[in-house]
């Protein structure tokens, strides 16, 4: 009754019925891999909701930041839960983005006409990692301060503009009085608003261009209507995300900054690692060669290559991937139909090599802890990871491509068998007889 009245109110003024009806009738594909992006979406919702709460508590000043975060304890249970959920969601958020992206990559959903949305997605991945890193740095504790010092050195290594950029960020030399306030503005306003805008664009493009689907019939759209079917399913995905995050948040205290202590530029906690999504950069810094070059009289510090050039190349590769893919597959036709991963073994190989490279660099970020646990020399581990990065990734790519090719061959052989439908009929002796029928 009330719903109908409210509906009429808006319809008479905005003509909303038509598009509500259209939205409710929209069809969503019914495949498990389409939930992955939703997990990322709902983690973002959790992050924004808890983040707003945290802005009421956090003191974005060089002196007050640590106390305002470390003061969130048993005495302030609501704020404590908010902080727990916030940090855990960030850890889950970036992981969910990556698995979603893997789905898009391996099923080639980025092909024409969806290249724009792929680039939007990559941008959100980068911004999400940056938001995570700046957020992790805000409490001004000993652990994150060490990360900031490294980030500062990487910034300084930029030729020409590095020193100027670092001075601007810090409001002086590191760790300047303006550092925390600047990070706060970036973390709590600039980045989330940008991600929110990109997310709106992402979803708008998705709705406008329609979902991709596995059903190889471009003329049909297969799936479930938003109302009454998919709305409830996506709600279930939302609650699954909330549940998993809450379980973590209520069982394990994340990032115990009070234990790490306040940051002082004369101490470095040991062992020190960033949150997992930034670890590959830390790993790259640990594996990078000690190479000090001078170009036209300008010193290029060693951190420049792993800290700036490598991530730059990775981002360029990811952004350009739809166009590189077109070149390799010689296929520039618009399509709404997904390619099962096995149809293009070379793509599986490239994806596996990228994942392996990320994994090796991420592992290298905690090589000191592993060396201690395994009782081996840390330098041996560094060399092992260097070797794995150079050759292991290629080997992983080749192996994955070979497996994909093998799977495709088997699938092709069995392809016609799958068409056969078998029915069983019970016979007089109590056994079963096979009864052949035509495919439905």
């Amino acid at each position, binding site marked *: 009754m009330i719903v109908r009245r409210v509906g009429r109110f808006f319809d008479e003024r905005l003509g909303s019925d038509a598009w509500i009806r259209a939205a409710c009738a929209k069809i969503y594909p019914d495949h498990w891999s389409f939930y992955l992006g939703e997990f990322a979406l709902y983690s973002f919702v959790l992050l924004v909701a808890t983040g707003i709460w945290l802005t009421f508590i956090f003191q974005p000043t060089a002196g007050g930041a640590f106390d305002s975060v470390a003061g969130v304890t048993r005495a302030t249970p609501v704020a404590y839960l908010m902080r727990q959920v916030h940090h855990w969601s960030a850890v889950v958020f970036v*992981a969910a983005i990556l698995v979603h992206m893997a789905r898009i990559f391996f099923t080639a959903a980025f092909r024409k006409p969806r290249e724009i949305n792929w680039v939007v997605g990559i941008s959100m991945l980068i911004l999400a990692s940056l938001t995570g890193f700046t957020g992790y740095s805000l409490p001004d504790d000993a652990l994150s301060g060490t990360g900031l010092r490294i980030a500062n050195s990487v910034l300084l290594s930029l030729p020409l503009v590095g020193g100027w950029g670092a001075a601007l960020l810090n409001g002086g030399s590191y760790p300047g009085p303006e550092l925390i306030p600047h990070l706060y503005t970036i973390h709590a306003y600039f980045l989330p608003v940008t991600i929110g805008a990109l997310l709106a664009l992402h979803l708008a493009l998705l709705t406008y261009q329609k979902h991709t689907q596995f059903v190889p019939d471009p003329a049909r759209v297969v799936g479930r209507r938003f109302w009454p079917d998919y709305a409830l399913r996506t709600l279930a995905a939302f609650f699954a995300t909330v549940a998993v995050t809450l379980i973590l948040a209520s069982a394990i205290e994340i990032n115990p900054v009070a234990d790490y202590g306040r940051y002082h530029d004369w101490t470095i906690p040991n062992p020190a690692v960033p949150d997992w999504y930034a670890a590959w950069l830390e790993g790259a810094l640990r594996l990078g060669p000690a190479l000090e070059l001078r170009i036209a009289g300008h010193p290029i510090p060693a951190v420049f290559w792993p800290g700036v050039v490598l991530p730059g190349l990775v981002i360029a590769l990811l952004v350009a991937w739809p166009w590189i893919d077109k070149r390799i597959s010689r296929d520039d036709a618009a399509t709404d139909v997904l390619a099962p991963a096995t149809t293009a073994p070379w793509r599986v190989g490239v994806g596996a090599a990228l994942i392996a490279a990320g994994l090796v660099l991420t592992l290298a970020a905690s090589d000191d802890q592993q060396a201690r646990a395994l009782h081996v020399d840390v330098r041996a581990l560094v060399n092992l990871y260097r070797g794995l990065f150079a050759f292991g990734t290629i080997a992983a790519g080749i192996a994955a491509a070979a497996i994909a090719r093998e799977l495709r061959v088997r699938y092709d052989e069995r392809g016609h068998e799958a068409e056969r439908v078998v029915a069983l009929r019970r016979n007089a002796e109590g056994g079963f007889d096979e009864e052949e029928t035509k495919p439905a």
Partner: protein
Amino acid sequence: MFVAAAIAGALLYGQHCASCHGADLRGSVNAPSIRGAGAAQVDFWVGTGRMPAALPWVEEGHRRTPFTREQIDALIAYVTSVQPGGAAIPVVLPGGDPRRGRTLFEQNCEHCHGAYAQGASIGSSEWAPSLRDASRVQLAEAVRIGPGQMPPFAEQQLGGRDLDDVAAYVESLDAGADRPLVPLTSSGPVPEGLLGWLAVGLLIVFAFGYSRSSR
């Protein structure tokens, strides 16, 4: 008076300490020599319940001491009568400036005991304990004698007034307020990242099962 206490102390020593520290205080395979240990040493080690240890070389944390004040004084009298010397029990005053104490604490103690004196790991298997249980006198004693892995601080480094300020800061920390509400505390970003991925793995399993079961 002192002699009477020393005799009572000798009895207690023979009963509770000699098995490890030796009848002559020179130590044994079980424990170091405590000859020349001063009043502050004995008062700290016995008063915080670390001594008598239950097993040799198994470190004890802060416990309730089984001894009364008179018995501890008797032990001190005995140990210092065997070989006089060592640091006396420091004199502490009530009050103090917690804000100044916090600065001193940050400079001298925080990197071991944690920003909120809640206790923290100091590498390998060593642990700097929480300072919640120590009394003002025990805190001053610890600073002067440097028990275990803790370095001693001389009067020139941290004066008596400084110690009162540090104690005032430690006391100003609301007891129990920094204990987390949750059962486990993360040991760093490595396990956090692994658990985050485990969570995403669970979500994938959920998605897989959910889209199957409702077909």
